[in-house]
């Protein structure tokens, strides 16, 4: 579900069912041609969920040229995916149309992430 306002962030929250640390993502996209990007959003969210199963937050942020988002200063390339938690923060940018490649990168980073995050599926 997406908000029609070009400046408002869109959240897609997934229910937490287990007591595990919450994985939190923000996905930054250019505001033009939103419809064409719907399948990319679905694909990225699916990959995030598969690498970090469990309670998670996945927020989609559309930026536009005149957007005054607080992240504008630091998000310089769109599309960009930011993993806010588990920390430390990780960023990915470029073409997200290849889910396998994204999966590899997220998995690599998950393996090297902070201690204490226990993945129950493994």
């Amino acid at each position, binding site marked *: 579900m997406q908000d029609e306002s070009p400046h408002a962030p869109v959240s897609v929250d997934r229910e937490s069912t287990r007591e595990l640390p919450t994985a939190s993502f923000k996905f930054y996209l250019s505001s033009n041609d939103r419809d064409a990007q719907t399948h990319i959003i679905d694909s990225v969210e699916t990959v995030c969920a598969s690498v970090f199963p469990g309670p998670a937050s996945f927020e989609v942020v559309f930026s536009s040229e005149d957007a005054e988002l607080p992240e504008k200063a630091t998000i310089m*390339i769109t599309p960009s995916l930011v993993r806010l938690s588990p920390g430390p923060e990780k960023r*990915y940018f*470029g*073409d997200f*149309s290849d889910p396998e490649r994204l999966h590899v*990168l997220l998995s690599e980073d998950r393996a090297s992430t902070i201690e204490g995050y226990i993945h129950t599926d493994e």
Partner: protein
Amino acid sequence: MYFYPKIERVQSKDTYTQMNKDATRLLAQGHQLNQVIKVLLVEDRLADARLVEHALAAYLDAKFETHTCKTLLTSLEYLNRNSPNVIIADLNLPDSVGSDTFEQIHKAAPITPLVIMTAHTDSRLGVSAVDAGAQDYLIKGEIESQSLGRLLLQAIARQNLRQSMAQHLQDVESSRTRLHNLVDLNIDGILIVNRDGKVIFANRRSEELFGLSHHQLMHHTLGRPVSDEIGSEIAITDKYGKVRKVHMRSQATGWDNDDAYMVLLSEISDSSRGLLRHSANAVDNVTGLFSRDMFYEQARLCLQHAQGNNLTPALLCVNLDSFRRINEAMGHVSGDELLRLVGERIRRQLRAGDIIGRFGSDEFLILLAPLRRALDADNVSKKIMESLAEPIALAQNDLRITARTGVSIYPQDGVRVDELVSHAQVASQRAKQAAGGHVHYYTHDLTQRSERRFQLEQQLRRALPQQQFDLAYQPIVDVQSGQIQGVEALLRWRTDSAEQIGPAEFVPILEETGLINGVGEWAMRRACEQTQQWWQAGVELQLSVNLSPVQFESPRLLAIIESALNDSGLPAKALCLELTESVLMRNIEASVSTLKALRNKGVAVAIDDFGTGFSSLNYLKRFAIDTLKIDRSFIRDVMLGGHDAAITHATIDLAHNLGLKVVAEGVEEPGQLGFLKTHGCDTYQGYFFSRPTTPEGILELYKSF
């Protein structure tokens, strides 16, 4: 007794091992090729020379051919014509002693290995020579055939190794420059990000795409690229919020022994096409540095970043002195090579983020980007000037060049690139005029002076066609009789605005702009015509005409004089050309030849302002001259009887002993004339007799006698 080479002091063990291998290889090569190794032996004591010659003759593994010189002078002459493979030199010679001998020989043959021979009691001299660049030293009395031969072969091998290392380093540096240009001038943004997505390298185009300085971009984390090398379209939002569409490709790579990604960013939007169009002209072909357009483009970006960040970029304009003459003397190929080497030297003094480009033939512009204090500009300028003061090896010559630097600072001296460039150029011009000052900072006063100079230049360009020049004539009078002997023709300029501008101000501009050629030729013709009119009226005066350096060095000089004499009908003996000492000393051999040609034509030559330049009495006898003109500064105080009187007296005697005539300039008082009479001066000129006047005025003065 065996002599063991004392190499350990100057070479590490590993290098020593390598040297031995090289010596062995050279030895083997020499043996195989039956190579004759030419040795220059500089030794004044016959017994010591014989000892070395015999030791080398007895060496079996290579053939040495020894040439012995007993003095420094003969050895320097020998080195001028020959290229020995190695030099053995005793530093204490009849005509030179100690380190002076070493320096002179080393300077004459800088790449030939030099082995010093010292007495047992004087081994410290050998050690200091090795420190200064000698390959090794021998101690007299400890010389033995096998060790001497091996030592010489090792010295040659070491020198060859040094040479090849120097060449290798130069190749590496050239390659580095090419690679640097390839990356930094690339129309695509090139980024390297590490595994955490932190930017660890960014080229200039990336800085422009993100609207960030190099420093700022290096502190950003972009992330890990998720797309592969096939490429994809992304959007970049710069710090001002502007969005650019960019085609991105990425590739896994290594960087400093760690995993990293190389990201290539090609702008898709229209604005990139302009950059693409001029990127073909982005690099100066001769030096590999930025061209004018690219320098402006990069400097503009740099100033943009400086704005608001409290940074004070400085713009340096470095000009080479006498490049045109070097280019003419050594040819364009050498000239281009010199520019390349100079560009390279300057670049080595710069830091990452500084920008350098070449503008005119010998003008280098540098933008020192991240300055926080104006003092930094001073440090960098000094480093650049020091690096250029070192001799430059060019076409088997050790060339010494001088340069000057003008500096303008952002924002006080300008906020636009063109303002800073023009102000740095003005300051550089000022550095040229200032005695001893090779670095000059721009001040507003310079602009005013520069504007006046520019205006005068524009007016002077119109002056000749608009017939604004005229000649005045100052009588040259016989000291004893008081009769006018001749006249000096002096250039005058009647400007549009009737402003009085003296030759001291406008003649230098004529010389710098080359306008002096046309104006000088006009003056020569006009003065000859006028003098011929006097001759026809029975007034046979000798005409003196000043020649500027540009005219004297012009290949057309003789043709112009011949034509002026022929067209006017004036006899050659009636013409005297006045030159300053400094003009003659600029290129002594050429001066000797030109003066000889002038004498063959029957034209007389006078040295003007004698005593104020770098007079070398030694050259006076080589130059075919007829007259010395004693400068007015000596005549002014001649009556006080101090040094000036002594110099004037001595100059008159000297000139007469050399068979030259003497003219005293600037005579304004009867006492001065009295002094000149007493000491036998031939002629004089000055306000005492007459100011410069019209041709009619000259006739009146002549007839009134």
